[in-house]
């Protein structure tokens, strides 16, 4: 692994930690939702980075190139397919979360989780 690519992975990990920090520390429902979204983007980015190759070609095979040289030059398409699925799942979770936030706001009149504390013990 070269120094540059190591740097990218490190930044990706930092992004993940920013999201986790946001979820754990912030008191506002909307900020927690944003934190979760950031965490998920970090993982998606990580998936893409796994399959990435510097100066790689798009993973679309045409009749002209043979399979060996194609495999040596193209980026890995599988993580991209995974990211598509993961984005769709993320959309579902995000929608549900935002809907819950709206309902919670209707009931409690606040986004502050220190005031939404009926369940304890």
């Amino acid at each position, binding site marked *: 692994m070269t120094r540059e690519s190591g740097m990218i992975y490190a930044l990706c990990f930092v992004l*993940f930690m920013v999201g*986790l920090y946001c*979820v754990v520390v912030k008191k506002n*429902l909307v900020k*927690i939702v944003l934190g*979760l979204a950031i*965490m*998920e983007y970090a*993982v998606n980015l*990580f*998936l893409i980075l*796994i399959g990435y190759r510097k100066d790689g070609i798009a993973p679309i095979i045409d009749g002209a190139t043979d399979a060996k040289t194609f495999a040596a030059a193209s980026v890995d398409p*599988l*993580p991209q397919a*995974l990211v598509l*699925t*993961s984005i769709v*799942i993320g959309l*579902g*979770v995000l929608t*549900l*979360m935002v809907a*819950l*936030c709206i*309902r*919670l706001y209707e*009931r*409690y009149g606040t986004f502050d989780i220190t005031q*939404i*504390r*009926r*369940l304890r*013990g």
Partner: protein
Amino acid sequence: MSIIPLFVAIPLASAFLIPMFSKRIRVFSDIFANVTTFILCVMSLGVIGRNAVYTVGLWKPPVGIAMALDGWSVLLLVTVNSISFCATVFSIKYMEQYTSKLRYYSLFLLMVAGMNGVVLSGDLFNLYVFLEIASIASYALVGFGCQHDELEASFKYLVLGSVASTFILLGVAVGYSLTGTLNMADISARLPHDSSTFIFMASCFILGFGLKAALVPFHAWLPDAHPSAPAPISAMLSGVLIKAIGVYALIRLIFNIFGLTPVLSHILLFFGTASMVIGVFLAIGQWDMKRLFAYHSISQIGYVMLGFGLATPLGILGAIFHLMNHAVFKGLLFLTAGSVEYNIHTRQLEEMGGLRERMPVTGFTSLVASMSIAGIPPLNGFWSKLIIIIACVQSGHYIFGLWAAFVSLMTLASFLKVQKFAFFGELKEHNKGVREVPVGMCLSMMILALLCVGMGLLLVPSVRAQLLDPAVASLLRGTEYAAWILSKG
């Protein structure tokens, strides 16, 4: 035509068909959902003793997605589908209290489809997708009542559940970068066990699935989420969901993909004992009936993990058997709590009392389930706890065995409390007019109570060879799992 994909396809299809066709005729949704879960239940009993690999789209593993059926999956399939049948029978009358039964059944069947998918999947990313289907449906079902508590519990569960899912996805990604494949068997064959990346991946999975299974340092969401859901959903969540998407997946990965090492085995022992002890101490002080049961779920999952951590054939047998038993008696306990709530509209133990006279079936089935979870012979909970304790002694872990026996006593104490305050004692004035719940709800509670009494028979050698022994064998063969899948494909 293989039967394996139908376990996912049937509930998925009916989840979409129910809201489409039963808008006009209300009763159609009840019939449709119950028939679906009944068919699934019969199918799962039909596959007992079978081993098969199904390749999706006829792509051979490791290229294509594989679905694998072995002893350990069959056991979970039987548990999931039988409990979900009982829960849908219970739902017919119980869910009349809520609006929009159609959406309820739809989400319920999505959850079942997700769980069946998780236990059958032979592909790591596919497992993640099914896990998310089951989880998202369960987040929505926890908040189904849309009251203050339900929404709060649902949001808490959703946040922690999403963090868990993100860690699992990170684990999948690291696994792919390490081995270049997503097929579980192929990963197992190529995994370099001594690299630090492997340790990172394993910790991501343990954290993620530990959160989903509510092992003790990660248990904060469970006592809020499980009591807030409607009773049949509490039964499903505590009874099978934490097992199918938490325990099953973690144990499959540790035993069959990573291969059990002493370090991993000690991690399981530690988490198991911590959950067992802390769960029961938190439970005993509770006055909310369903919350008390929810804390006991943490404690009983601890037993299961302890049994797996011992990693002896007897320990695994005990763990697997306790997992099935817990699904039955915890499902039953939540259903009885639901019946009480259906009648007197409260979950507080102080406001109950003497309900046994007015609700004989609920009182009796609840007594059976309480004795079963406390480990009174000859009910099913006794046998599995006994096996786990014997396995502890046999493998020289005396301290763990002692803890297990102690926790069993504490469990007995807290269920004596439930029985004393809820069903025995003086009948309160404002509960004089209470009547027994409708027949459908009684029926599903009686089925589960019968199972509580009869499941000890699963240990008879000829019966054990059908269900429990294959499950133990499929875990004990360890990483040979890979060779089995790749040769069948």
